[in-house]
Structures are given as C-alpha cells and as structure tokens.
C-alpha cells in the first residue's frame, strides 16, 4: 500500500473571532508555516498567520510610474521627433496638452499592475490545490473558517500537531492529502 503524502492538518472553526484567536495561539505555540481561510477578508488574520510584507503597493507604484513615463514619452517622441505637425503654431513639445493622456496611461498601467500583480503574488490562477481535497473546505466560500498547519513546518508532527489543534476546540479536524 502506498502512503499518500500529507499536505497539512486543517481545523474548521465557526467564526472569524475563533479563527483569529486560533491562529494567534498556533503561532505562539511555535508553528511558522500555516495559513487561514475565510469567506471574507478578516481584520488582523493575515498578521495572525505571520504575513507582514505586502508587495502590492510597490507593484502598483511601479506600474503607475511606467505608465506615466511611457505615456509622456510616447507623446513627446511622436509629436516632437517622429511626426512633428504644426497645429495652430503650437510648439511641437506642447506639454500641457500631453497631461491628459499621461494621466490616463498612469491610471491604466497602475490599475493593470494592481490586478495582475495581486493575482501573480497570490499565485493565481491555480485551478487545483491540496486544500480542495478536503470536502468540507467547500464551506470556506460560504460560512466556515479554516486554519491549516503545513506538514513542511519544522515543528509539524502528525500526532502532536493533531493534539494541539484539537485543544483549540475546532468544529472538525481533517488531514489534507498532498
């Protein structure tokens, strides 16, 4: 008989409050590699599972700067270098007229960076994931809250971790096959 590898242990909770408390206690117990799942964004949950560094703002800033420079640069190059047209005697490099398109390009690139940057950092799209192997996990998009300790955690031990998670009073506890 082949042993299936274990991805982690998953505990199910009834409320956001219980999940945040459980995440804090798991962290205090010395576990490092864990995650939590909720049907809506829960205040303070990301910090509780040890997530502190959110790179999305930097990605958006970079996108915005690229859009801004690309937008202005494009207009300058087209209007002053590549295809200079005399329009009503205005200078080829008429910067006030270029602001609108520069602004729109800034927003466009920053917005695209926000969405695709967020998805990329989250590793999405990822159609399948070990947590989906737990049937009850379907409730994570409805009204249940889940905490998982990954088997890759140095402190992970099938029996001890199960005992610890039991002590948090979960509604159910399941082993996540890898």
């Amino acid at each position, binding site marked *: 008989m082949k042993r299936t590898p274990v991805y982690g242990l998953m505990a199910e909770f009834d409320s956001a409050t219980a999940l945040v408390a459980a995440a804090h206690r798991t962290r205090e117990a010395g576990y490092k590699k864990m995650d939590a*799942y909720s049907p809506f964004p829960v205040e303070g949950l990301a910090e509780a599972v040890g997530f502190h560094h959110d790179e999305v703002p930097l990605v958006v800033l970079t996108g915005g700067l690229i859009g801004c420079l690309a937008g202005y640069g494009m207009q300058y190059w087209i*209007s002053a270098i590549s295809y200079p047209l005399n329009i009503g005697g205005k200078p080829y490099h008429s910067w006030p007229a270029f602001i*609108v398109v520069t602004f*729109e390009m800034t927003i466009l690139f*920053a917005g695209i960076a926000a969405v695709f940057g967020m*998805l990329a950092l989250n590793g999405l799209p990822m159609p399948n994931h070990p947590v989906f192997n737990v049937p009850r996990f379907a409730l994570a998009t409805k009204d249940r809250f889940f905490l998982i300790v990954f088997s890759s955690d140095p402190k992970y031990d099938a029996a001890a971790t199960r005992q610890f998670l039991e002590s948090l009073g979960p509604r159910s506890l399941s082993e996540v096959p890898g």
Partner: protein
Amino acid sequence: MDEQTKSVTSSKQAPVIEPGYTFATVTDKISAIVLQRPTSNGWFVGFGIGFLLTMMMLFAIGYLFVRGTGIWGVTIPIGWGFAIVNFVWWIGIGHAGTLISAILLLLRQSWRNSINRFAEAMTLFAVSCAGIFPLIHVGRPWLAYWLFPYPNTMGVWPQFRSPLVWDVFAVSTYFTISLLFWFIGLIPDLATLRDRSDNRWAKIIYGILAMGWRGSARHWHRYETAYLLLAGLATPLVLSVHTVVSFDFAVGIVPGWHTTIFPPYFVAGAIYSGFAMVLMLAIPIRKLYGLEDFITERHLENSAKVMLATGLIVAYGYVIEAFMGWYSGNRYDAFTLWNRLHGPYAFFYYMLLACNIVIPQVLWSKKLRTSPVWLFFISGVVLVGMWLERFIIVVVSLQRDFLNSSWGMYYPTRWDWMTYIGTIGMFLAAIFLFVRILPMISIFEMRTLLPEAEVKE
C-alpha cells in the same frame, strides 16, 4: 470594518441589510438566484425584447456601413447629431457605477456593498453602448483603429493636442479599469458559485473564472490592498472621463461649448443620470428577485439624495451658462442663450429645465424619496432630461453659430432612432444576462456587513 458594522446596527435610518441574516443565509439567498431559481418566463420576455432591439441596432449599423453616414440626420452645420448625444449620455450613465464602487468605498459608505456589483455591471454595459457611437460616427469605421497610436507603414501618428484623441484614451482606460475592478470584485463570489453549484458545466466555468480562489488570509490581504488601490485610481479616473468628454466641446470655439464650467458640470450631470439609471434598475430588480432585505429603503433614499445634490449642481451649471451668456458681453454667446430660449428647439430646452431642475425637486420630500414608484418615475424623467441636455449642447449650439448663412436644422432619421433605441435594447439584454449568470450583489462584501464579521478581542 468596525465602523461598518456599527453603522449597520446603531443607525436610526433604515438598515443596510435587514436583521436576522447569517453568512450562510446571505450566501444562499444571493447565489440561489443564479444557481437554483428557475429562469422565469418574464426573464425570457425581457431578454427577448432586449435581444430584438439589439438586432434592430445591428441592422441599422449594417445599413450604415453599406450606405454611409448620409442615412443619418447629420449635415453641416450639425455634424455631430445623435451619435455624440448618445455617446455622452451613455458614458455619463456609466459614471454612477464607478462612483458607487470606488468613491463610496474610499468614503467608507458601507451601504454601497449591496448595489456596487450591478452598478459596476451597468457601467460596463453603458460604456460599451457609448463606445459604439464614436466608432460608427467616424465615417469609415473599418479604419477606427487609426485612433490608437501604433507603428504603421504610412508613418502617421495621432495628433495629441486634440481633445478627441484624449477622449480615446480616457474612454478606453475607463472601460479597462472598470472591467478589471468588476472582475476582481467577482473573484471571491465566483469561487462561492463554483463550490455551491451542482451542475458540472457551471462548476467548471465558474471554477475557471474564479482562478482557484481559496480565501487564504494572505490572498485576502493582497486582494484588499489591490482593491483599495484600484478604488483610489478609479476615483480620479471617473472624474477625468467626463471632464475629457467635456473638453471635446469646451476646447472648441463654438458658442455654447467654449466655457470653463463644462468639466465640473458634465461630471455632476454624469453622476446625476447614472444614479437615475441605478434606481431604474434597482427598483424592479429588488422587487422581482425579492431582494428588499438587501437593497433597502436606505439605498433608495441615499441614491435619491445623491441625485438631488448632483441635480442642483447641474442646475447651477445652467444658471452660470445663462449668466455668462449675458455677462460676457459676447454677442454670439448672448445669441446662443436667446436661441435656446426662443429658437426652433426652445421646446426641448424648456423640457430640459422641467426634467432636470423642476420635477426632481420633489425629492426634498422624504415620503417621495423612499417611495419606489415615485423614484422610478423621477429617475426616468431625469434620464430623459439628461439626454435632452446633451441634445441641446450638441445640436442647438451647432445649429446657429457665427454666420447666419451657415445656419441649419437637424432632423434625426429613423436610422438615428433605431441605433439609439437599439443600444437601449443591448443594454437591457446585457443586464438580463448578467442577473441570470452572475451574482448581482457582492456576496462576500455583504458578509462583511453582518455583525458576526467583526473580530472580537
């Protein structure tokens, strides 16, 4: 979130969501509309009407491609006509969606959570309808891509000093950002539908669209950051779009267009008509789908208040336009005012004043403001009024400008009307499809409104 839940529980106004709901019942109620509820005959009738009108529009556009813009009523001096009137009208309607989803999010107006989804959908469909008009109005629509800067063998490029080029960028950016905003708002709800659907194909399709969303705390954190930043980006964007549309006019020298009041007055008018459309959609939808618990009297009343406020800004715009016509001492500006009041289209100007300024003042009454029937009626009036406003700006200004030898009249043809009414049909058909296949209320944002969503220490 703390303020949100407090505003739900401790407010003296009608609640944002009726009490007694849980995460599960909110989820069931909204997702059941898509997953369980049988498609009613009324839906088929409504969608069918929209579909037939769309076909009529395609027929009118097809004939236009064969014969050219000569089939329309546009002639010199009135070269813009219905195409631009309808373009500005539809773009304006789109503005409410972004206002609700972005600006009200930044202002922490939690009541927006139950109407943002379909308001954003409305934005997308309205901007799609709007986008048709300039494309078919260019005369040679198969060359419309020349509007975009792309390297070509002719060695020509767009002329970036022209507001018409700015408009291309503003409208296409607006559509793209609105689509992205709507889509990322949908991702968690698509995951909910994926997990709750019994139909194999529905599961696969929602699954692909949800991209494997699993609600991880890390994902939510980045998601919220991205959503908030996108709202911050969409806020100046939405204000810029109608500003740029108004530049199409204001940068020109035609009397009646060449005024500095145009940008703010256009933006206010856009939000005015947009909220009118939101109400015209929300009132029947909440009734037909039994969503009165989620789209409550509070939403109707708040939307009515926004309409009242923006309507007054629009009224201020009219007053300033008239005042400047006199105060500028410019005889052409003065004549434009006279022509509006006494010219051949004067009837429409008085209709405009009645629809946009006089009739909506009944919204000062709380009783009417909270009555769905009245609101539906007044919203319709406002939409007609805002359409007339664009008609007055486009047609009446061009009709009689500097030289009376070049004066003329504009009479829309049946093709103009078929195209215009056709886009209304296309809009309706898209809305019908949307409410049938996607959750029309943001499920995950509704969950955050419940008192249980708050984390207690």
